């Protein structure tokens, strides 16, 4: 599903974010990426959405070499991925319904499909009574649940979550992770980058520990937060 072959990323200030990274993630896995700040977790996720291009190496996602992807094909790649961010990245000018609808619109869904699917997604994340609310009228937990609803609405093959619990209290954090696990049960690959020890330990699935742009530990089953 996802393959990194000898991937290196060096930022403009000569900071080496990824240093010859090799990694494979299979379809349907739930992977927690852990490691100290600057270990390269977010860079890894940004390479998968092709916000960044590596200086060296090959990245294959769902059989596609990302380096060979044209700007015109980029939206099609991103429609295979659902993104969840620490800062939610919701569209502030759109209400809850419209935020989710947008992800469907870009995939070419009809108005009827949007009207049918969006309320279901809002119900799954427990926001069915807040369809008209704008992001600034919602709590942190609600915003993140809305972001998850947006990430799953178009039934992506992969969900990438970058510190999704970073701005949430423990209760909301568990809610978010439970949602991600539920999505994973339907066969969606989930990659979760986090600093949250309790969350990682409670998930108990594959845990990849990164440091200085390399994989230093890969616990394939019953993984624990170890850095």
């Amino acid at each position, binding site marked *: 599903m996802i393959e990194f072959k000898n991937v290196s990323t060096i930022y403009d200030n000569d900071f080496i974010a990824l240093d010859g990274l090799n990694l494979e993630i299979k379809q349907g896995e739930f992977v927690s990426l852990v490691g100290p700040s600057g270990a390269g977790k977010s860079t890894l996720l940004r390479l998968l959405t092709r916000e960044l291009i590596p200086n060296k190496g090959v990245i294959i996602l769902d059989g596609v070499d990302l380096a060979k992807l044209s700007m015109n094909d980029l939206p099609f790649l*991103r429609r295979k991925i659902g993104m969840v961010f620490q800062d939610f990245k919701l569209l502030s*000018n759109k209400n809850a319904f419209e935020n989710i609808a*947008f992800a469907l*619109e870009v995939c070419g869904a009809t108005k009827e499909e949007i009207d049918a699917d969006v309320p279901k997604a809002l119900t799954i994340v427990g926001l069915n009574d807040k369809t008209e609310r704008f992001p600034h009228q919602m709590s942190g937990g609600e915003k993140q649940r809305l972001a998850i609803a947006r990430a799953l609405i178009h039934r992506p093959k992969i969900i990438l979550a970058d510190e999704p619990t970073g701005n949430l209290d423990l209760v909301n954090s568990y809610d978010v992770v439970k949602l991600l696990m539920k999505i994973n049960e339907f066969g969606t690959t989930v990659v979760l980058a986090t600093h949250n020890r309790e969350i990682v330990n409670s998930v108990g699935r594959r845990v990849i520990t990164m440091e200085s742009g390399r994989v230093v530990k890969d616990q394939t089953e019953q993984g624990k937060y170890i850095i």
Partner: protein
Amino acid sequence: MKASLKRIFDTGWTNFKRNSYLSLGTTGVMVLVLSMFSGLLAVNYISSRIVSTLQDKVDVSVYFKNEAKEEEILQVKNDLESLSQVKVVTYISKDQAFEDFKQKHAGDALIQESLAELESNPLQASLNVKANESSQYASIAGFLEENKLRSVVDKINFYENEQVIKRVEGIYRGIQNWGFIATMALALVAVLVTFNTIRLTIYNQKQEIEIMRLVGGSSWHIKAPYLVEGGLYGAFAGLITIAMFYPAVIFASPKVEALMPEVGLLGYFLTNILQFAGLVLLVGILLGAVSSFVAIRRFLKV
């Protein structure tokens, strides 16, 4: 296709309404720009009227010797009329000239008495020549000098009028050249002001655009509603400008006419109301949409 267009227009309109402060500010700036544009149209009209009035007043007369036969004069008239520079040639016979003189001085008893005592008509037959442009009189005078019937021509008053003609020509060229430069300079200012205003408006939504890109929005899917939004700024600004411009013309028109009676400002803009309104709306919509198009490009590179 229809559903997609509807979505684009609906989203553009919703954004326009929701960003009400930004929309108001941008529309306000565009009203100023379009008012300046309308003002330029009015100034161009006034200056072109002044120039054409001046040009109408300029002509050249060819006076013929008394022994010139009428068919010779008409031959010269025909020759002149065959020139592309010549707009119109009017033949004034000796009798006609005498009649015109009498009419002109009908109230002057002394002149009337003098005319009555004359044994023969002292006035000369003449041709009055109007050119298409004032710069063409010199070549018309040259043509007459070369004419085979030059011998029956007594004098060509171009040489007496030459200075006046050259001054009119100078004013005409000045207004044309400087008017063009001023119009272009102001148009450039207008485009830059609009572009920068819309760029700031879109810069404000930079993060939104990047998010749309990250959730898989294609360039056009993201861009199109912004183009509609830009077009809406222009359309509203155009409507407000038209609504302000006509009262201003109604107010200014009598004052301009008092100074320059040949300039019918209100009449001109009323006759051309559809063309004027269409032009202002078109310029507004294009300025808004094109500015949005250019401004949004750099944020779509994510």
